[in-house]
């Protein structure tokens, strides 16, 4: 099956009557801007890691269309359950660079308040967020509101039992859940064909989910498909799944060495399908991007990069007491005693 595509790698619009999209300059510029900011942020975070300011960084390089295209197609009050590489999506929700980076700096395990952004904290245990998203959607269903839940996961995570239980549980309970898989072709060094024999959207269909395959580097297709499917989910059509074919253009993380397992030519071929590039071509061809917009955006990107650097370096450490106070609602006598003894020991050295 061919993925849904509305914009080809050369920036030419293609036709697909099943997925209408009202194409406006504003929409295109907005999507383009968000992708550019996300990529600039990602580059900067990479640099920060190389400078030793972050312990680790997992780049979203190449997946901007999949993330921006999807999250921009749901409502701000739709709750999102990300995996751990959804930086572009997080930025779209207004999460700040500081909030995003603090986890990777090693100062916190999560940086933002999920309630503020309706964006759950990152989940590093693969697929573990998917039952959470399903349960949250069960709550929405019981509340009788018209929110939906959007959950991200990867091609690797799809092999976990919990991911497949989710396909099944969601299908049988008919919750308002939209499962969005970024198939970026790799799970660390493991190619997608080692994970699965069929395309993941076909698997989801087998469970009874409405499921679609979309060119994940075509932001117009991602946006159009997500918007249409989200509305069906919202209006009681039951849960659905979207598989976006995209590519992890960087290594798995800054600790990874992709040269050990994949050919440079593969990356080269995906570079010709860069998601930002093709929307840029469209904007240029249509004359929807003038010099002013271009210059403003370049400047905005640089400001954002600088802010990212600065915020990162200024990130505060919490007091160690937070560790003892956030295990349970109230610290237990054991924790209190442990904390007391530790403080005493530290104090004894300070003397």
């Amino acid at each position: 099956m061919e993925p849904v595509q509305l914009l080809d790698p050369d920036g030419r619009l293609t036709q697909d009557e099943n997925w209408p999209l009202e194409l406006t300059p504003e929409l295109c510029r907005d999507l383009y801007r968000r992708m550019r900011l996300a990529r600039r942020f990602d580059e900067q975070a990479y640099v920060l890691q190389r400078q030793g300011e972050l312990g680790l960084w997992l780049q979203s390089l190449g997946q901007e269309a999949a993330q921006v295209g999807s999250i921009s197609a749901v409502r701000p009050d739709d709750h999102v359950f990300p995996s751990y590489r959804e930086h572009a999506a997080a930025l779209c929700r207004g999460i700040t660079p500081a909030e995003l980076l603090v986890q990777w700096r090693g100062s916190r395990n999560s940086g933002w308040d999920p309630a503020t952004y309706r964006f759950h904290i990152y989940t590093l245990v693969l697929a573990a967020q998917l039952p959470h998203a399903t349960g949250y959607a069960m709550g929405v269903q019981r509340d009788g509101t018209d929110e939906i839940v959007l959950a991200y996961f990867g091609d690797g995570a799809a092999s976990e039992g919990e991911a497949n239980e989710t396909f099944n549980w969601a299908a049988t309970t008919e919750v308002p859940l939209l499962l969005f898989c970024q198939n970026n072709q790799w799970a660390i060094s493991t190619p997608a064909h080692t994970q699965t024999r069929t395309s993941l959207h076909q698997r989801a269909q087998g469970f009874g989910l409405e499921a679609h395959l979309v060119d994940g580097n075509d932001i117009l297709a991602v946006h159009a498909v997500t918007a249409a499917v989200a509305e069906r989910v919202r209006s009681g059509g039951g849960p659905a799944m979207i598989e976006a074919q995209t590519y992890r253009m960087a290594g798995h993380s800054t600790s990874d060495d992709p040269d050990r397992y994949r050919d440079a030519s593969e990356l080269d071929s995906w570079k010709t399908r860069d998601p930002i590039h093709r929307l840029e071509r469209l904007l240029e061809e249509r004359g929807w991007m003038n010099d002013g917009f271009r210059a403003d955006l370049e400047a905005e990107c640089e400001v954002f990069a600088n802010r990212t650097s600065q915020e990162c370096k200024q990130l505060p450490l919490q007091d160690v007491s937070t560790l003892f106070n956030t295990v349970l609602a109230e610290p237990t006598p054991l924790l209190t005693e442990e904390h007391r003894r530790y403080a005493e020991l530290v104090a004894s050295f300070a003397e």
Partner: protein
Amino acid sequence: MSQLTLSKALNTGLQQALTNDPKVIVMGQDVGGLGGVFRVTDGLQKDFGPQRVIDTPLAEASIVGTAIGLALRGYRPICEIQFDGFVYPAFNQIVSQLAKMRARSHGQLALPVVIRIPVGGGIGAVEHHSESNEVYFAHTAGLRVVCCSNPQDGHWMLRQAVASEDPVIFYEPKRRYWAKDEVTDTPAESTLPLDRARILRSGDDLTLLTYGGMVDTCQRAAAVAAEEDRREIEVVDLRTLSPLDMETIAASVGKTGRCVVAHEAPTFAGLGAEVGAEITEYSFYDLQAPVLRVGGFNIPYPPAKYEDQHLPDLDRVLDAVDRSFAW
């Protein structure tokens, strides 16, 4: 005040919890029409409907995982795991998600989820249906682990667990489900907070610590010791396994100077080890003998015909008591 079995006392506890708070949800395998294999959820679906008393698919990881999601949405789910030996598919969700969410979110996210687990042996069941796995969860920071032993405690501890902002692993000893006793409609004078142990019988000569299905055995052991050997044994029902109520425990052992811990779980790295290690630190100079442990053998739970040998009985508890006095 009524005479109820433990199963019924838990049932009325759930009923109260569902009545008092519309956010409370009961979920699990066969909890609806069947009322659960131990009938603890009997009639609840009829009274509260299938939206609040949910017959789930057969998938423990998702039972706990979706309960976490429901809690994030503001609900207070009470999950039933059908038997102790079937909680392991949910282990990842419990240990890496449920237990850690508060710490991972630096206090922003609370998960008031209760996981009810029928526990332990003594009912002649087939394999995987008689296990005591409390220490896996006790060792896991971020969970409360409690175990009831009688109808009154079962009822009130369950209501307290539902009211708690923390995730609670709530153990129910299977072999006590049909034991009857009085249950009060309002908290009794004797109703303790969830984090306190209960002194069931006081005595000056030795402290016998236990919980769940072994409480009855230990009380009988104390009676025998009093009658036959004039030994006054203080029996403490731990009730809360994590955190431990060390105040009560240490006060008792400080007084008696001797201590035996009895549980169904294998002793090796079992809860008795923790209790023993802590007591020894608290009461080193008061101890007349090392804290002795009596537990299931360090083997996978045996076939039913061997459980009377495997589970500590009166003789093995009294033997440990004797060994303590003989030290």
